[in-house]
């Protein structure tokens, strides 16, 4: 294959990575932005989403789209409910203390991981894609499903932006993010906001996982990579910034796709880490983040 088509293929792969990564990182960024909590268990919510997608979709016989659609609805809901429960039972009791919640979410990471190992097992399992159309380019054919993942991610990101920027819920959320105490003095129940944000953050990771599981198999250790990449994305983009998350996810996803194809995946990770180091040195608040007053 010539360089041009090869670059196009690599870019498409990068776009898919960026699409999934931006959803996962958005969840992490929302939780930190509003609650000031570094959720180390975020990758496990992603893993749980994938494992549940397998558990829900596999028993459904017939059209694979049916099982997939059911997984897309139920898996994020179950993960959201689990996140809600952990927020109530763990984080709220710790009064959202930053240091304590890091330790607590590390504990949650191991609990979720070991529960998955116990009930799901150590094997990697795939979920069938809802459709297998191919888009035929002059040089190669490309999975229509993979492109639909990009479309779904863009739609969800737009929806999130709309909710944040144009609705009353979004206004309450932003007020809580900027000044929780004053938000309470204006009738905003920040406990409920925190609860909702933690659940929605986990649900976004679960949606990303359901989207990726027909491409990449579900496995009980699959949460680590998305967690690390999400941290890279939110540090570069700026914690709590939707625009920053999208831009950084596209940069990291695309470079990961292109560099992995032309050179090696290890080099892609090295460059991403280097970029994080440079951002931390020269612009610690991230490219689109606001400096702490």
């Amino acid at each position: 294959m010539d360089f041009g088509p090869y670059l196009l293929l690599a870019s498409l792969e990068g776009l898919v990575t960026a699409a999934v990564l931006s959803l996962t990182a958005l969840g992490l960024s929302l939780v930190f932005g509003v609650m000031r909590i570094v959720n180390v268990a975020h990758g496990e919510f992603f893993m749980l989403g994938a494992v549940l997608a397998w558990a829900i979709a596999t028993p459904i016989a017939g059209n694979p789209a049916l099982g997939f659609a059911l997984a897309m609805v139920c898996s994020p809901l179950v993960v959201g409910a689990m996140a809600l429960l952990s927020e109530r039972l763990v984080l709220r009791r710790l009064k959202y203390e930053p240091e304590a919640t890091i330790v607590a979410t590390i504990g949650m990471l191991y609990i979720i991981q070991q529960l998955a190992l116990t009930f799901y097992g150590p094997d990697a399992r795939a979920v069938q894609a809802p459709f297998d159309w191919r888009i035929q380019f002059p040089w190669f054919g490309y999975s229509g499903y993979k492109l639909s993942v990009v479309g779904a991610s863009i739609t969800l990101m737009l929806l999130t932006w709309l909710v944040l920027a144009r609705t009353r819920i979004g206004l309450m959320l932003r007020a809580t993010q900027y000044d929780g105490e004053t938000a309470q003095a204006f009738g905003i129940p920040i406990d409920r906001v925190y609860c909702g944000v933690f659940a929605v953050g986990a649900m976004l990771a679960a949606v990303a996982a359901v989207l990726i599981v027909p491409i990449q198999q579900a496995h009980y250790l699959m949460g680590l990579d998305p967690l690390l990449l999400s941290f890279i994305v939110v540090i570069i983009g700026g914690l709590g910034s939707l625009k920053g998350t999208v831009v950084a996810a596209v940069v990291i996803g695309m470079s990961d796709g292109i560099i992995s194809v032309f050179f090696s995946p290890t080099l892609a990770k090295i460059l991403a880490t280097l970029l994080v180091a440079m951002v931390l040195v020269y612009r610690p608040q991230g490219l689109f983040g606001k400096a702490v007053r």
Partner: protein
Amino acid sequence: MLSVHDIDCFYDDVQVLRGFALELREGEVLCLLGRNGAGKTTALKAIMGLVRVKAGKILLGDTELSALPPHEVPKRGIAYVPQGRRLFAELSVADNLEIGLMTRGKGRPVRDTVLELFPVLHARLNQRAGTLSGGEQQMLAMARALCLEPDVLLLDEPTEGLMPSMIARVRETIAELRRRGVSTILVEQRVDAVLPVADRVAFIENGRNRETVPVEALRTDLDLLHRYVGVGV
């Protein structure tokens, strides 16, 4: 109307209010005076539920405010203008006002009425609150609180850092609110700036309300201000 009954409040292990008591009458402006660290701001925060009351209670009519979660207090008609304004600086002026309107489900007509008091904000509705001048920010902080259509207004050092013309504007606004029947608790360091609009003055010392007197009493007993605030009139 609003009564504070012997409340104790702490920041961690440090007790800030010790048996603090207060009575706010309908339609009056009650000024809290005292030295730095006397507990004035904590008293306002306790009324708003932002600092937990460990002993005693706060009543608004028959409702025990100190038993409510903090976000329920403003819904009972108590608005708070915190020290340093605490605007949502990244949000627009319109969004800051919208947050005030949301609290008690008030709509656009209330915002228009409030903006009549602060016409300067009209032209700045789409501007980021953090980019306003100090005086405009104070106007916005008061306007945001008034969007609740409160019965009780708590003002914490509203003249802090303002130039004399803006201080006069704040004073006029407080006087206008009193005419409209809003009861106000006013915490101030600048005695001269607020006494013209106050009805009564409460002197706070070491977390206790030492004495509450009509503002006229200060004219005959100059020693009061010296004793509790360390300044003369």
